[in-house]
């Protein structure tokens, strides 16, 4: 169990670092969505399914899409 917690937690940290260091904004958004996904797995391991549901739906689902909507808007503005 300790090992699983360790793996999932390091995945959270690794995706967070990825979100900062990757070159393109698209990859950064996907990496930050992965942070939410692994965090929700973490909550399930710690017996908090209520929080895990919120994190999965909002943290990794809606937030990612909102970022993508804004990114597409920024591109549209750049293209005129």
């Amino acid at each position: 169990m300790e090992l699983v917690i360790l793996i999932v937690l390091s995945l959270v940290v690794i995706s967070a670092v990825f979100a900062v260091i990757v070159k393109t904004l698209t990859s950064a958004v996907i990496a930050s969505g992965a942070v939410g996904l692994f965090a929700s797995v973490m909550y399930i391991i710690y017996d908090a399914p209520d929080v895990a549901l919120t994190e999965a739906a909002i943290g990794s689902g809606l937030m990612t899409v909102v970022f993508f909507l804004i990114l597409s808007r920024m591109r549209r503005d750049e293209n005129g």
Partner: protein
Amino acid sequence: MVRNLFIIFILAGVASMFAALALGYSDPVALGSAASHYVSKGLAELNGVNIVTSVVVTYRGLDTLGEVTVLFLTASILSFFLKNRSHETKSESSELLTTASKVIFPFIFMTGLYIVMNGHLTPGGGFQGGAVVASALLLLILADNKTDGSPTLFTVLESVSGIFYVGTGVAGLILAGGFLDATVLGAGITGRLLSAGAIPLISTLIGLKVGSELSTMLVKLKNASEV
């Protein structure tokens, strides 16, 4: 150089604050007085099997009302600042997205409704279910570029559920122990869908409110033309 020193100084300050927290931490060995009341008396008082939802909806119902209000404020500010784009620039969505969304939408939507309705029995509740319902609607919004997402429907739904939510709270204040007290309705039989007093009702109202607020925000963001 001065700037770097300043940054290091601030970082050291934050680190010392967190160090004090981390060093002073010890694993809690017993429940606090409020928590032990929820665990020991929660089932008897409210008849809700999922104590987390009982706490979120009733014992700390005011907090949830605050959260929903913050969401409402955000949606209102977005509506105020983002203007709708004119229709001529909209293009068709990809066929893959359109077809897939038609297949997947009912499943995600029904899962969201299930989470909303069964908040007092299984993990979930109004907030979580509302977010899932909004993500199902998001698929439809993304798949259909021509629609403007019927903002009137969402606004009306949001307002009506908000009024009923606060109304249920006031009813608890008058008829039962306090604001948002779920015992205004009968306790019912433990484990049934319609049990645990007003928790399913409040949960459904929160679900409607959160779902329509999030959907309004997403529609606004998608159709925004200028800030």
